[in-house]
């Protein structure tokens, strides 16, 4: 269950690749999907690169960095331990992805990606070592055997006509269920339905992964001349939308009927 695999590498950039391969293999064995495996690889790469470029910048004395991987319940956990001077990367200010080109600084993206790509990141200093713990949740998609059925259950989609569809997700849109929503939206877009009416009335929780799926679909729909139109948002969801500025991005209606009535009469 919680078998721990372990690898130590010398603190040199050429060795990072080996650590990436090690983590990829462990993540695949833990049942993470291809995308989650990629995320883990990148987070570990960024973390190790930071440690080597900054922590060991002045003494390349063959110090080692230790990487361990283990699975606990639905979580794949990577720890990275090194003996460079105490440094908590999480205290550093993250760069802003919406910054214009001219003011962009070249560095600082490593930590940003680590936080974005993993579900949980913690730092502690113990026994004169920096210990960074990266956690990736293993998506429900992998643990339950029938993703096809789950799609129908949680994300019913109904075609209105050749150009539009209504999708009615229920429950929680988090990192384990958003994959389904993504898939359902993809299918509609691929079949030429670019007006996607997502009725959110039965959605009680949305995590950043759910937001991301909606934005991705919105982008693609807009590229193809359509739109993603939302309706029936619960107050808590409205709050989250306003927090991240999504209320400015999406057309939002109080309920599905109003949303459909406002559909532009083209074709």
């Amino acid at each position, binding site marked *: 269950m919680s078998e721990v695999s372990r690898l130590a590498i010398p603190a040199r950039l050429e060795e990072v690749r080996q650590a990436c391969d090690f983590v990829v293999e462990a993540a695949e064995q833990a049942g993470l999907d291809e*995308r989650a495996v990629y995320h883990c690889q990148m987070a570990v790469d960024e973390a190790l690169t930071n440690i080597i470029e900054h922590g060991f910048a002045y003494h390349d004395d063959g110090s080692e960095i230790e990487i361990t991987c283990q699975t606990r319940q639905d979580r794949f956990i990577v720890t990275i331990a090194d003996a460079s001077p105490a440094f908590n990367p999480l205290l550093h200010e993250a760069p802003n992805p919406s910054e214009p080109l001219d003011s962009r600084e070249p560095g600082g993206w490593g930590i940003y990606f680590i936080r974005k790509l993993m579900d949980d990141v913690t730092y502690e200093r113990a026994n004169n070592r920096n210990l960074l713990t990266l956690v990736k949740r293993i998506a429900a998609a992998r643990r339950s055997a029938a993703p096809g059925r789950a799609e129908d259950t949680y994300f019913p989609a109904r075609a209105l006509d050749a150009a539009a569809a209504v999708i009615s997700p229920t429950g929680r849109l988090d990192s384990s269920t958003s994959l389904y929503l993504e898939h359902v939206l993809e299918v509609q877009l691929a079949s030429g339905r670019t007006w996607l009416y997502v009725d959110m009335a039965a959605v009680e929780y949305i995590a950043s992964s759910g937001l991301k799926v909606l934005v991705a679909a919105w982008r693609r729909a807009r590229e193809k001349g359509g739109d993603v139109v939302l309706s029936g948002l619960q107050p808590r969801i409205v709050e989250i939308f306003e927090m991240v500025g999504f209320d400015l991005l999406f057309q939002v209606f109080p309920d599905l009927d109003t949303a459909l009535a406002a559909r532009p009469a083209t074709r």
Partner: protein
Amino acid sequence: MVMEISTSDMKRVQLFEVIGRVDSTNAAELGSAMDKSVDDGKTNLVLDLGGVEYMSSAGLREMVRVLKRVKRTGGDLRIANPSERVREVLELAGLDSIFEIYPTQVEAVGSF
């Protein structure tokens, strides 16, 4: 072979096709390949990432650096054919609003 870059001199565009893995051990190599063209006055660049299976922030950093450089002289660095994963990373960093990204090499080259 971890990363391979092939450069083609086209009429109005320098095309860079990258294959393999771009990380902190070789991102500088990618940057300097593009720099060489800019040094020669060729500032319309297309970076075909179709063969890139993995790219870390070190690669993005070089791309942003070169983009800044060519923009100053009226050129551009446009991206073609990124994998779904690389595209996601570009979006996470907000770079999809800074780079013009095309689904195919032909479209990227033709955009100049």
